[in-house]
């Protein structure tokens, strides 16, 4: 997913990739590995935290974005039709 976003930005943004300049260069960057978190009991699920939100990525491509108060902002199913929290019945 990160490779796809980086590829699209490489082709259309006209701005050289430099994640250190994410605040000012006008280019979009995928979540960086230094903010990746594991989810207990869910080896295939990764969590990325920002100041107000948690974003979950499942191996099947599912994406779930929640506020810190657990309000769901986006819950997109993956290739197999399962959502990020569905596969283990969470």
């Amino acid at each position, binding site marked *: 997913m990160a490779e796809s976003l980086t590829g699209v930005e490489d082709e259309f943004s006209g701005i050289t990739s430099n994640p250190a300049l*994410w*605040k000012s260069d006008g280019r979009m960057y995928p979540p960086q*590995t*230094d*903010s*990746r*978190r*594991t989810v207990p009991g869910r080896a295939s699920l990764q969590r990325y*935290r*920002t*100041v*107000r*939100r948690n974003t979950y990525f499942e191996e099947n491509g599912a994406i779930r974005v929640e506020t810190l108060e657990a309000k769901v902002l986006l819950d997109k199913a993956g290739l197999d039709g399962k959502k990020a929290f569905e596969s283990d019945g969470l």
Partner: protein
Amino acid sequence: MKNLIAEFQDRLAGKVPESAVKLDASESGDQRWLEIRARNKRLTLEYLAKTGFGIFRRNAGFGEGPAEVYRTAELAADRVAQLIASGKKRRETLSLKDLRELYGCSQVQLADKIVVQQAAISRFEQRSEVKLGTLAAAVKALGGELEVRAHFRDCDVPISLND
């Protein structure tokens, strides 16, 4: 390596004993979020190994960086203590008084450094409008440098204090 997070927590506990800090660390440990609760207030700090402690605006937008950055645990904890103590209405910027107190400088000490009377510092801190030259001198005396910027819809520029 010194554990800056533990240092921050110890310092804050000393200043605000009732504060509770919840940590949310990344796998690498390079990024940690600190959720702080005290006196019905909630503050979120980001700790990045590269840059230090960041404090965000209350209504920070998606992708927005921290409004304040502190490179030492001591300054970060003291600033959080200030914010917790700051009544109902949290200011999004620091006053000269906030800054002076963060650096442990009294009005008398600051007055001596910029060669004015202590009363002048007292008046300065209570005014709603201040002379930029005096503010620049005070910030310099505390070890910093004042920068003034103008933000427009189509540009973002530094403003000279000298010309």
